[in-house]
């Protein structure tokens, strides 16, 4: 049996750990509040983009009058042969099952799809997502082909994809989550749109952790392209939190001063739903079809932006919960060790007394 000194040392070490996890929990709580705020502030813009789009769809023909073809390449539906899946995980660990839940969902999606014989591209966002797929699957190879015409007066560029394996990794957005910046997201969205337009991919799915409140989150697989129904999230797979997880999250939130309620809709937000939808005849400064064309890429960008902000909030919430659980466990461990230490000490004292008493009796 360990002696008193050993146990005392062990208790001190656990106490230190508890202090660290407690600090990490408070930091995560502060970050979570900020992330929640940010997601909230970003809502009016996203809402307005989708309401004006909806209103335009009602006013314009999305089919071309003469040929009957769709007006925009992002609306075109093709048979899903090549599928892009954007996996949004976190940058850091210590967040409980956050990263593994997402990678698990992504992996099962990839397995399902490759069983159907589809080619899959994976676009990882966040270091944890990248680390997982980069080891497993090869990177996609692109070739930029240049052709010169008319004595080099005109040049034609073409990007050609050489697919070597059924599952490949495209793009690398490891640092996107450090500061979720709309310009960087826009760049990523445009690269995806370009690939979709030149029919390199036939569908785009997002795998991320949706965040409504601390106790209401789920891992979802959402279809991003082709755009079928505007303003609605087309969720194909969702994994809800268990009651146990909810309880743990609620406890963590209560002890660090984070509200577990879903934030209420602000006045601007409810007004945002009416952006561009008033029941009047608008004067269109540019033809509606042109506005429509320019809006669709912005719509895709805001969808990804929204997913990223929610994922960041979820990551902090998961870390806060995990660190709260760690702090509690450390407390339990300290209690157990203290009890054991007291017992050992008591046993030593008892033993000494017995020795003295029996020594006295022998006299």
């Amino acid at each position: 049996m360990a002696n008193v000194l050993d146990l005392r040392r062990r208790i001190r070490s656990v106490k230190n750990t508890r202090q660290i996890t407690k600090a990490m929990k408070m930091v995560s709580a502060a970050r979570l509040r900020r992330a929640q705020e940010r997601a909230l502030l970003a809502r009016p813009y996203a809402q307005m983009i989708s309401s004006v789009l909806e209103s335009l769809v009602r006013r314009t023909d999305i089919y071309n009058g003469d040929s009957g073809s769709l007006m925009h390449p992002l609306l075109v539906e093709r048979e899903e042969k090549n599928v892009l899946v954007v996996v949004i995980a976190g940058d850091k660990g210590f967040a409980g099952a956050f990263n593994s839940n997402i990678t698990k969902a992504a992996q099962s999606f990839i397995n399902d799809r490759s069983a159907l014989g589809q080619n899959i591209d994976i676009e990882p966002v966040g270091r944890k997502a990248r680390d997982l797929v980069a080891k497993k699957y090869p990177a996609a190879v692109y070739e930029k082909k240049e052709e010169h015409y008319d004595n080099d007066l005109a040049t034609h560029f073409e990007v050609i994809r050489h697919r070597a394996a059924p599952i490949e990794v495209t793009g690398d957005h490891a640092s996107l989550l450090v500061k979720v910046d709309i310009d960087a997201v826009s760049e990523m969205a445009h690269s995806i749109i370009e690939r979709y337009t030149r029919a390199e991919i036939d569908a785009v799915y997002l795998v991320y952790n949706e965040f409504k409140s601390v106790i209401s989150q789920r891992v979802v697989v959402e279809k991003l392209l082709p755009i079928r129904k505007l303003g609605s999230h087309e969720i194909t797979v969702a994994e809800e939190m268990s009651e146990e997880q909810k309880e743990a999250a609620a406890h963590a939130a209560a002890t660090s001063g984070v509200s577990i309620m879903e934030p209420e809709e602000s006045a601007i937000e409810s007004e945002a739903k009416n952006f561009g939808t008033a029941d009047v005849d608008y004067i269109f400064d540019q033809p509606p079809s042109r506005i429509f064309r320019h809006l669709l890429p912005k719509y895709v960008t805001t969808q990804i932006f929204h997913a990223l902000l929610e994922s960041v909030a979820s990551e902090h919430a998961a870390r806060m919960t995990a660190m709260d659980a760690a702090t509690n466990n450390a407390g339990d461990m300290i209690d157990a060790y203290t009890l054991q230490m007291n017992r050992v000490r008591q046993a030593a004292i008892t033993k000494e007394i017995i020795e003295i008493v029996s020594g006295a009796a022998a006299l």
Partner: protein
Amino acid sequence: MAENTSNSGLLTVRLVTPDRVLLDSTAEAVELPSMSGYLEALYGHAPLLAELGAGEVRLHGGASGDQKFFVAWGFVEVLPERVTILAETAMHPEEIKVDEAREELAKAERLWNEAGDDGQKYDEANAITRQAEEMIASAEGKSH
């Protein structure tokens, strides 16, 4: 609708960016940089939907006095009593970094030269040039 005398005759003006609502105020008149040139909206303007180019949004009168914002790319909805501006980029003219704008200008020129026969690339280069030029003009107070 303009004859509605019960109202103060002030437009509600909102400037919304992907990050946040930058401005929520009122004005007597708003100048807007539409894709096809500047337009000005007064109280009671007919409903209008326009694509936003790059340039300055200027508010005249209203609760917080005259104000200027540099904006680029987005949409604007004008209703008789409300103007809502959706802008991809929006900032105060004082926040513009002229050096960065000049770098962008140089980058746009490079893109233009490398565009080859791709029409879209030329459009992109033009868009960057326009935004950078308007940014510099706005920062120097020379925006028209």
